[in-house]
């Protein structure tokens, strides 16, 4: 299955791209997508403990199941306002 991964702010800078397509083996979770990302971009690993995640533009959890075509976002700590 194929998912789109969105990265923002410093996480995007570390990976060098704000949008990546990942092939994952089923069944997949948000955590599988993250592991696939860390395998290719080990420099993003430091965010695992402090980031938030979203699936299809709703906050989610690392353990959440994902389906083919989903958009998974990894979000650094926010600094709006």
């Amino acid at each position: 299955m194929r998912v789109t991964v969105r990265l923002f702010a410093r996480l995007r800078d570390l990976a060098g791209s704000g949008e990546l397509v990942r092939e994952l083996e089923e069944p997949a979770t948000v955590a599988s997508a993250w592991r696939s990302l860390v395998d290719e971009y080990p420099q993003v690993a430091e965010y695992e403990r402090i980031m938030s995640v979203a699936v299809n533009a709703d906050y989610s959890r690392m353990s959440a199941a994902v389906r083919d075509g989903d958009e998974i976002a990894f979000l650094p700590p926010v600094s709006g306002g």
Partner: protein
Amino acid sequence: MTAPLPGRRYTEHMAVPAVAVTTAPLSLEAVIDVVSAGGSASGAVASFSGLVRDHNQGRTVTFLEYEAYVPLAVKGMERIVSEAGETWPGVRLALHHRIGRLDPGEASIVIAAAGAHRADTFSACRYAIERVKQIVPIWKREHFEGGDVWLEGATADPEDEAARAQALRVSCA
């Protein structure tokens, strides 16, 4: 996201929404108008503008660059409006956040709350900015003399009741 039309304010070409994420310069008047509309029973309107500082942590700031995960940022701001409505029944809240490049002195966020009494409207405004900093996926990169840095605050978790309670506490202090 609301794209500006050339030569017009972002609020001119449409009914102004209660929440917005836009690259266009913000209008405090616009959010005040949103919460004031049809509210002749309102005895109070409170507002807040967040502006780009020219100094931060001893650095001279040249400009800020804001980025958002727009669809989730809009949902987060809608959630804040809904939370405020539950907390202060009858209070109407509107907030607009700007993204893109902002120079010192420009507004990054404008918030207005209208209601029957001053206490609730001040509280709702303060609550809104505290919650934005907790749960809305927007980030700023500070450009200063000699470099730039992404600022990172709270790990966003709308279900974190302790964070929400903290926002409520400072809003009602």
